[in-house]
């Protein structure tokens, strides 16, 4: 089978069931074994406003929303006006004909008006009638892409029967069938059609994937304060708390969130929390306190556009320096940026084993693109029982040589950690600096030698950590003319841009950073030695990663592609930018965002 690659987008107002449309279509694709990547451009409104969800469907794994849209579904008049020009020539546009007085004008696409009022006239409940529009147009969509209607019927029953009852199920199936049948009679199908392939996949969003990874890693305590775009982690944790035995608490603020995590972790639980940049700022002081008390915690920052309240519903990679600089003083810490949605799942157990071993804070840098994006995955590809290594944890009375010293000076910097409730290991942990036994070395006990010893002990942990972190990856030819360098969530889009450039005869490779801190200068420089003309691609204004990389390694990139308009990169943004940079027009390329929501 030739590669199938198709992009559907659906526009409408919040409350019109765009997410439901997306999840249903995503699940249908997953049942066909087709891969999906979604991006939702939305606004911070519960009613009113506008949402535009892009769903890319492919016979091969895909990790960005593509360059062109083949099919658009407009759920309201506004979407007709706004997005009629966004369909590629030869594509199709589905809309409710009751919404528009005059048909949209484009003769290079297939216009698919649906007489929804007629199809839904049998539904007496006006609210239900209004709400089933998305299902009707999904029926039409399925016909155009060559998918079977019965898969949608199964999903309607699965998602609606228990929650909403038979009447709602019947109404939805009725309008879906009408939408589908209408397309059979009136519209032309796309040439490329859905074809089943094995295995059937599952469909998940990035925040859920990270929550799942945390659960698999053994998280027993999760706390949160709601903040877009991280709230999906809380939603998943709260949904599964009782089924999996996880303590989930919503707090009065993010300061409370992280301090509860610290208390729970100290008492013996694997504990984590998630927030976005503003919430993370409130957590800063406590990050350092976890490091000082040597308590392992994990904090997820799902970045949105900043500064300040910024862009609540838009993406950015603008918090790298916030994480690097979070909290006063020097202390051991780990920063990791998952490179795609399922990597968010796999990262959590890896990170928990590291922070448990080294008794320090671990920070995950995700963003809206990953957190609120959906992907498909093969259920067999995820390990629900990853290795759980708690490090040197003491929870029982044991034989000891001499007395127990909580912060014992060791070569590795790791001191065995006893949890409260354990007989024979009573100690105090303090946010003031302290000696091996926890005794304060500030205030009247100030002792510069003890301070130096304990500071060096803590920082020695970094030497162990840095050896365990995998180096950045190099993909593509080793001796390329162009090297695209990225970090975190942009892996998929840079990877595709790199392939496109190679296809166009520009030999390109791709170096990608996941483990950001600590960084081993020699190891990283060895990878960077493969770089051709180097271009750092990132989603912020000041080149936060470029500056960080230069500071850590001395590496100076030849050019930069940066985006800070709130929308994620599309592959052609990077391809176009690379071309501009190659002809020497500029050292910094900022792509123009064509689709405006």
């Amino acid at each position: 089978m030739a590669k199938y690659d198709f992009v559907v987008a659906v526009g409408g107002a919040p409350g019109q069931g765009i997410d439901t449309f997306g999840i249903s279509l995503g699940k249908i694709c997953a049942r066909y074994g087709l891969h999906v990547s979604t991006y939702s451009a939305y606004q911070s409104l519960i009613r009113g406003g506008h949402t535009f969800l892009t769903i890319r469907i492919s016979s091969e794994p895909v990790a960005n929303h593509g360059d062109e849209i083949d099919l658009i579904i407009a759920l309201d008049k506004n979407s007709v006006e706004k997005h009629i020009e966004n369909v590629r020539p030869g594509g199709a546009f589905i809309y409710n004909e009751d919404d528009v007085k005059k048909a949209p004008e484009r003769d290079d696409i297939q216009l698919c008006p649906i007489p929804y009022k007629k199809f839904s006239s049998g539904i007496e409940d006006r609210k239900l009638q209004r709400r089933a529009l998305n299902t009707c147009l999904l029926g039409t969509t399925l016909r155009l892409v060559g998918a079977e209607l019965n898969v949608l019927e199964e999903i309607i029953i699965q998602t609606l029967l228990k929650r909403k009852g038979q009447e709602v199920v019947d109404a939805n199936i009725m309008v879906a069938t009408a939408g589908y049948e209408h397309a059979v009679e009136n519209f032309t199908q796309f040439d490329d059609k859905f074809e089943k392939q094995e295995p059937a996949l599952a469909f998940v969003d990035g925040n859920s994937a990270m929550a799942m990874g945390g659960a698999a890693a053994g998280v027993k305590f999760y706390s949160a304060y709601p903040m877009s775009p991280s709230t999906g982690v809380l939603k998943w944790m709260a949904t599964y708390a009782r089924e999996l035995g996880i303590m989930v608490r919503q707090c009065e603020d993010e300061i409370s969130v992280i301090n509860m995590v610290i208390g729970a972790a100290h008492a013996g639980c694997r504990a984590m929390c998630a927030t976005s940049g503003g919430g993370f700022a409130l957590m800063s002081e406590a990050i350092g306190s976890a490091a000082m008390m040597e308590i392992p915690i994990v904090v997820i920052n799902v970045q949105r556009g900043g500064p300040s309240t910024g862009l609540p519903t838009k993406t950015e990679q603008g918090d790298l320096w916030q994480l690097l600089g979070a909290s006063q003083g020097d202390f051991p810490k780990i920063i990791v940026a998952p490179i795609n949605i399922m990597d968010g799942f796999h990262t959590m157990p890896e990170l928990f084993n590291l922070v448990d071993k080294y008794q320090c804070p671990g920070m995950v840098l995700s963003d809206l693109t990953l957190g609120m994006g959906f992907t498909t995955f093969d259920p067999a590809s995820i390990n629900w029982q990853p290795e759980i290594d708690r490090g040197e944890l003491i929870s029982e009375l044991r034989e000891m040589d001499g007395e127990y010293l909580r912060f014992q000076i060791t070569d590795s910097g790791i001191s065995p950690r006893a949890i409260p409730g354990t007989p024979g290991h009573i100690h105090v942990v303090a946010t003031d600096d302290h000696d091996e036994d926890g005794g304060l070395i500030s205030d009247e006990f100030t002792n510069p030698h003890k301070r130096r010893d304990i500071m060096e002990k803590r920082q020695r942990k970094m030497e162990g950590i840095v050896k365990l972190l995998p180096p950045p990856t190099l993909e593509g030819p080793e001796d390329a003319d162009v090297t695209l360098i990225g970090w975190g969530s942009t892996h998929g889009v840079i990877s595709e841009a790199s392939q496109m450039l190679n296809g166009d005869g520009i030999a390109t490779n791709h170096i990608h950073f996941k483990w950001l801190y600590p960084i081993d200068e020699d190891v990283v420089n060895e990878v960077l030695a493969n770089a051709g003309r180097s271009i750092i691609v990132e989603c912020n204004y000041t080149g936060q990663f470029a500056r960080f990389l230069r500071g850590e390694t001395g590496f100076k990139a030849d050019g930069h592609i940066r985006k800070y308009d709130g929308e994620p990169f599309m592959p052609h943004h990077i391809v176009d930018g690379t071309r501009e940079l190659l002809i020497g027009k500029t050292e910094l390329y900022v792509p123009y965002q064509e689709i405006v929501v």
Partner: protein
Amino acid sequence: MAKKERPIKGAPTARDYKGDVNPDWCPGCGDFGVLASLQSAYAELGRGSHDHLTVSGIGCSSNLPGFIRTYGMHTLHGRSLAVATGAKMANHELNVVVTGGDGDGYGIGGNHFIHTMRKNIDLLYIVMNNETYGLTVGQASPTTVVGEKTYSTPFGNIETPLNPVAMAIVSGATYVARAFSSERKQLTELMINGMQHKGFAFIDVISPCITWKGDEIFDYWKERVNMLEDHDTSDKAAALEQAVKTGHDTQLGLFYHDTNSQSLDQMEPVLENGPMAHQQMGVTPEQGDAIIKRMM
């Protein structure tokens, strides 16, 4: 601060809870009385010293965990209640006691104070209220009275002090008391009962600061405190009526005791299988399959 658990022979005494570090408080500080009462209360409770967790924030009184022989956490300024809540929810079999001062608890930690009470977390919270920021050399605190001259109010304080006891009663605390560091017997009793109370127990302890308030501060308070008498502790409205009395009519004792409400750990179904910290970690293959099924 070597604070090893001493083998307890026979009934534990307050001495068994004495830390190896002597308090760094100014001679004559009210906090000494609070520390001694807490050591007696721990001993009276009769559990192993490793079963207690003493959590504090920052400030003079927050140095207390270092002077006592239990597990201890000396956390950030104002954050003791949040940390203690996390610890309690992770292991609800621990007896978790939180200590601190008025700046720590009512100022920077005010938000946590309200919400920890609202949630009825099973903690004993002891605030050594000296109406000043002692460790930063004597500025006005949230409980400093109007007119008082301090480093930060050289012309006299013009802000109204908050009433922590009244605040606790209306915020959902289920055991609310006021004590005086010089009334040791009453204070110890309130602490023991507070530890035994299932829910959020709060004791606002008048613990005078002689350094920033002068030697006469103890006499000042002795003239003003009165023992709460003929009071029904189950009556919330009556408790509030007593709590708002200040100045020469300041009342000491147990204002409010709700024995019916359940604490959060009692209501939380995930604790049915024992403390979180001791429960099985991770996801079983069956649980994983069930989760995946809903994503397909």
